[in-house]
């Protein structure tokens, strides 16, 4: 009897004191959530702070519109300024060069639907501001930018310097940087021999190991309700990312203008509410899982309904879910068994 | 008019006497304020359990049901929610007792029966509350409290019954 009680108390205390460290901070203009399992609190705090410092540095390096200080632009800001004068090479760091090469490759694969070169278009719509308000867009400006066709392939990188053959190229790595940061964090944690962690940068999530005996569980936000619609298990090295029309948008005359702009029309996408992609670990010499989870949801979000599967395949994505403007749910064949709906009788269409 | 005289048996008298005693305990408990509304020791169940062992299930059932009816009449709660709650508790508790008395006697004594009956009692009451009186999820919160009380008082009542039964022999 005594042993039974002892066992019970042990069981109970282990339930309440699991070795889970959790921190939340605002970096990257968004909420960064770091969970580390199985390390001492002190060590976990050290690791988390290191990751947050790295994120802060990345943020300064890659911010598309905010200067680091009054007189100094971010590295990306300086490059964008140089791009306006065509054919004037500007030195860039090897890290940024690698990022741009990777982003260019992904842009080509996605047939230009992922296009980080359309920074001018995004700022025309007013989304390159922390606090944006509803605006009536300058239609002529959109038309001009569309005609100028800024593309990633306009950028030439040579001898640690870059220039653009098209002065209307303006880089906005908003759909790339968070994923890149995830990969950096995971690489750092693996180097430090951390077995179990979950990192969430503004909704883009990557997993390392497990949460105790069970895998890390991630809830996918409902695009119109303050609750999760489904949950999924995130295995070691897997990443999940969602693009939604509810993340950054403004309403004008009852119409929703979201931050995801179709590079082919220059206008915000209207036929999709959200796209979620689930990405397995990638081979080392390719775009990593974090980057892919950030990038790959955009082309699927933008592409016309009948071509969504093609857009996914182009980037090697097998697991994805789409919720369209009429709240209809589409789930890729491979993804179906990975989802646990939180309400009964969810109707969805299976995509190839 | 013909004067009818109801024939009473020895059994009837015994049931009446024991029920009277149970009613007394029930009333005493009704007067003592409880720290938590709805949580009561249920000492009248000692009588039910004692009767079950001494005179069998039928007598115990009579005593229990009579006690519920008579006490509510005396307290002016007849057909009120309190009465219905009391009745549903008694019925499910009797059902639990009937099942439990078929357990092997060598291993399961009054303490087992008392605990199981107490759980049956709150189960009956909570089911009624959930489906009739307050049909929303709010009561779920109270179930663990009621269950702990049932376990505790079931144990105490069972120990007292066992003492009464075996010390007499």
């Amino acid at each position, binding site marked *: *009897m005594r042993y*039974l009680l002892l066992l019970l108390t042990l069981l*109970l205390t282990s339930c309440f004191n699991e070795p889970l460290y959790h*921190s*939340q*901070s*605002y970096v990257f*203009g*968004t*909420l960064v*959530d770091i*969970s580390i399992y199985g390390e001492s609190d002190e060590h976990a705090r050290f690791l988390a702070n290191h990751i947050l410092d790295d994120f802060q540095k990345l943020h300064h390096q890659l911010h598309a519109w905010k200067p680091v200080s009054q007189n100094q632009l971010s590295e990306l800001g300086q490059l964008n300024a140089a791009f306006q004068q065509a054919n004037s090479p500007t030195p860039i760091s090897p890290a940024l060069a690698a990022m741009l090469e990777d982003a260019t490759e992904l842009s080509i694969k996605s047939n230009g639907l992922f296009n980080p070169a359309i920074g001018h278009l995004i700022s025309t719509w007013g989304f390159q501001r922390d606090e*944006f*308000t509803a605006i009536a867009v300058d239609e002529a400006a959109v038309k001009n930018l569309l005609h100028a066709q800024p593309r990633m392939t306009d950028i030439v990188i040579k001898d640690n310097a870059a220039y653009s053959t098209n002065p209307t190229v303006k880089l906005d790595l908003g759909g790339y940087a968070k994923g890149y940061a995830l990969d950096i964090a995971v690489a750092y944690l693996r180097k430090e021999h951390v077995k179990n962690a*979950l990192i*969430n940068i*503004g*909704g*883009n999530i990557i997993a390392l190991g497990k949460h105790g005996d069970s895998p*890390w*569980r*991630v*809830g*996918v*936000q409902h695009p119109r309700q*303050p*609750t*999760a619609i489904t*949950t999924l298990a995130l295995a070691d090295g897997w990443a*999940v*990312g*969602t693009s*939604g029309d509810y993340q950054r948008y*403004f309403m004008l005359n009852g119409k929703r203008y979201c931050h995801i702009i179709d590079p082919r029309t220059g206008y915000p996408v209207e036929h999709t509410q959200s796209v*979620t992609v689930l990405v397995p670990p990638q081979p080392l010499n390719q775009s990593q899982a974090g980057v892919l989870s950030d990038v790959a949801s955009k082309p699927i979000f933008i592409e016309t309904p009948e071509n969504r599967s093609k857009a996914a395949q182009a980037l090697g994505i097998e697991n994805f879910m789409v919720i369209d403007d009429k709240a209809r749910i589409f789930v890729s064949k491979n993804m179906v068994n990975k989802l646990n709906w*939180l309400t009964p009788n969810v109707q969805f269409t299976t995509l190839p | 008019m013909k004067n009818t005289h109801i024939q009473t048996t020895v059994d009837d008298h015994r049931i009446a006497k024991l029920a009277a005693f149970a009613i007394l305990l029930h009333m005493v408990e009704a007067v003592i304020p409880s720290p938590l509304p709805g949580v009561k020791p249920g000492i009248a169940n000692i009588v039910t359990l004692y009767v079950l062992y001494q005179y069998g299930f039928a007598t115990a059932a009579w005593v229990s049901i009579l006690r519920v009816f008579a006490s509510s009449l005396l307290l002016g709660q007849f057909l009120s929610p309190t009465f219905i709650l009391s009745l549903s508790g008694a019925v499910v508790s009797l059902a639990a007792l009937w099942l439990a008395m078929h*357990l*092997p006697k060598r*291993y*399961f*004594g*009054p*303490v*087992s029966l008392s*605990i199981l009956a107490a*759980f049956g009692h709150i189960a009956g009451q909570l089911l009624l509350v959930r489906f009739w009186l307050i049909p929303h*999820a709010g009561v*779920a*919160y109270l*179930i*663990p409290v009621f*269950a*702990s009380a049932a*376990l505790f008082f*079931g*144990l105490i009542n*069972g*120990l007292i019954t*066992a003492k009464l*039964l075996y010390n007499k022999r």
Partner: protein
Amino acid sequence: MFNLPRYLKLLNPKLITQHVLSGDWLVLIAGLLCVLYLFQTLWSGEHAAKVQIRLGDKIYATYSLNQQREVHVHGKLGDAVIVIAQGKARFSKSPCTTQYCVHQGWLSHAGQAAICLPNQISLELMGDAKPYDALNY
């Protein structure tokens, strides 16, 4: 009549347990486990019990959802008002221009969250039965 030593003798553990049979112990332990299980599932169930308010990277406060209250939090931009009532919580006023946090409406289940990025305030409903570790949004 008041033979105190005799009554005290009744409290002797051996005397108390002398009529407790092996099956009785089993029932008692099963009952205990049952009660523990009920506490674990029903007192930490899906219906959240608490709301955690975070300001920046610090936990600002944790409140029970069963008590009605209005919380004023001074964020990066200014005062936000959070209302807690009847097991739910929401942003009712915020100085941010987008007002996404206010449009999130009432949160009522464990794991639900409302985040105000510009003002750096977040609400999260807590509960052991939280169905996931992180929210993908």
